[in-house]
């Protein structure tokens, strides 16, 4: 490592920490004010209270919305990760003509504005005569989650040596059992990462839900509805704080598993 290029740069270090602060500060205001006794958003905070959280636990529509979001999230996570495992294996292990365009096509939802897919699926469902419900929301979420599942799983497949699978085949296992007894355990951290990431994406997703929700609301839709009423602000703050906490923990674990697990394996392989 050449020292004259990598000299510590105090200016840039300060910038980095300020950047991180600005990135997180707005979001941390939400939990901060959720403990505020006053319903007005004003510094300094008057008195500490847990009232808003307690009040929240009595709100039946919120619990319904939460349960809906959890169901949609779990189903989206399991299906997109399952499809993602097969797709990632195919992409990393097999010679597939037209692989580049196919992969780019499947990654489209990462780039195209969400509203386009949402209204397109809305029209599709309408033409098929399928009424809007949590099922249509789940379908919309799958379109968004599958690319993320594949993108999370591909590095995992690239990170482990295909000769392990070949060894298993040489020792007499067929493809199916090699998959379950060698491939799946090896990519397990990636599978967990993908499950948690896709669950969080679905749990937090708003645009698809906005267009595809029927009568049963998901949690972000519930919050959207509450934003119209200023007097309900403290409750929204409390609910949002819980969602932010869950999302942070899930995504942190997911990214950690996806990236760190990989690094450890590579170190192990190199040693």
């Amino acid at each position, binding site marked *: 490592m050449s020292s004259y290029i990598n000299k510590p740069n105090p200016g840039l270090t300060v910038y980095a920490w300020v950047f991180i602060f600005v990135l997180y500060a707005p979001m941390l205001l939400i939990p901060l004010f959720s403990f505020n006794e006053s319903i007005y*958003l004003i510094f300094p905070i008057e008195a500490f209270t847990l009232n808003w959280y307690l009040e929240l636990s009595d709100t039946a529509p919120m619990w319904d919305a939460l349960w809906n979001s959890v169901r949609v999230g779990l189903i989206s996570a399991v299906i997109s990760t399952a499809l993602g495992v*097969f797709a990632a294996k195919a992409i990393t292990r*097999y*010679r597939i003509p037209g692989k580049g365009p196919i992969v780019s096509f499947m990654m489209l939802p990462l780039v195209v504005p969400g509203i386009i897919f949402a209204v397109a699926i809305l029209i599709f469902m309408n033409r098929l005569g399928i009424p809007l419900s949590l099922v249509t929301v789940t379908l919309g979420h799958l379109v968004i989650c599958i690319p993320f599942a594949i993108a999370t799983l591909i590095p995992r497949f690239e990170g482990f040596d295909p000769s392990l699978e070949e060894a298993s085949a040489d020792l007499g296992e067929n493809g199916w059992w090699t998959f379950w007894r060698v491939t799946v355990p090896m990519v397990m951290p990636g599978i967990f990462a993908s499950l948690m990431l896709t669950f969080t994406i679905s749990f937090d997703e708003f645009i698809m839900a906005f267009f595809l929700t029927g009568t049963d609301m998901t949690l972000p839709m519930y919050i959207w509805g509450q934003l119209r009423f200023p007097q309900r602000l403290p409750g929204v703050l409390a609910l949002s704080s819980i969602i932010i906490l869950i999302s942070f923990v899930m995504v942190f674990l997911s990214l950690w598993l996806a990236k760190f697990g990989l*690094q450890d394996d590579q170190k192990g392989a190199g040693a």
Partner: protein
Amino acid sequence: MADTTIAQTQAASTKPSVDLIKTTGFLASLLQRYEILRGYSLLAPALVFMALGILVPFGILITMSFWTPAGFEFNTDFSLKNYQDAAERPIYGALVTRSLWISGAATLITVMFCYPMAYYVAFYVHRNKMLWLILMTLPFWTSYLLRVFAWKIILGYDGLINSSLSGMGLIEQPLEFLLYSQTAVVITLTHAWAAFAILPIYVSLEKIDRSLLEAATDLGDGPWTRFFRVTLPLSLPGVMAASMLIFIPTVGDFITPALMGGPDGMMIGNLIQLQFGRANNWPMGSTLAIVMMLSVGAAALVMYLMTEFLKRRVA
């Protein structure tokens, strides 16, 4: 004990495969022989779903843009009326242009703020690099709605800035320009997408061969000259990728303008949403969605060509 378990699992593992070959003998042998076919069959579930979830709806969207509304149903005769409206009524063009400007501004500002951050992690962080990357991208994965909401808390009419300023007696009336303005939309978009812009820039910086930088220094370039002549040009692909990743999705955003924009900050996404909501004119909404896609595509193409041109000038 352990041996018997292994024997059992082996027995269990061979038995279904024998059955499988017997029942689906032809297909199985076909799959065995052709690697390409096996690859495709593994890919198929995801690919078929994505095709059904993207191509088919998109085809119907295009079809519907040529229809006209008729009461609660649609008149399915081919018509260019929607496109004519989109071209002739100034509100549509104005909103598309404004959306492109707002997103363009947000993209430019985001990339400018994120570049030094990515540079820092790529060149100055040696330990815990992964932790830094996770720390920077983490907010991106949390609810978009709540990130926008957070800014409403800060900039809002009864928000943090206004309440605190009037609490201190500095202002009599709440500052209205904070919320419901294009500035508010640009600030919120910049903050919401910052986490996403860092990664592509970081990757392109990380890829740069360090010996090139040493060579530049050895040949007498100072830090700034070296940066502008070597590092920046080599990281342009990452900057380009980051710009696209922010610019294209944000043009269609309707949450941020709805919560932060007010009438002046309304974007094309809001109008599309309106057509599918209260205005209940789905064909017009479809047309606007397609017009938006085409404009974004054209704008992105111009951005791409400009970078290519710049790259050639530098090289």
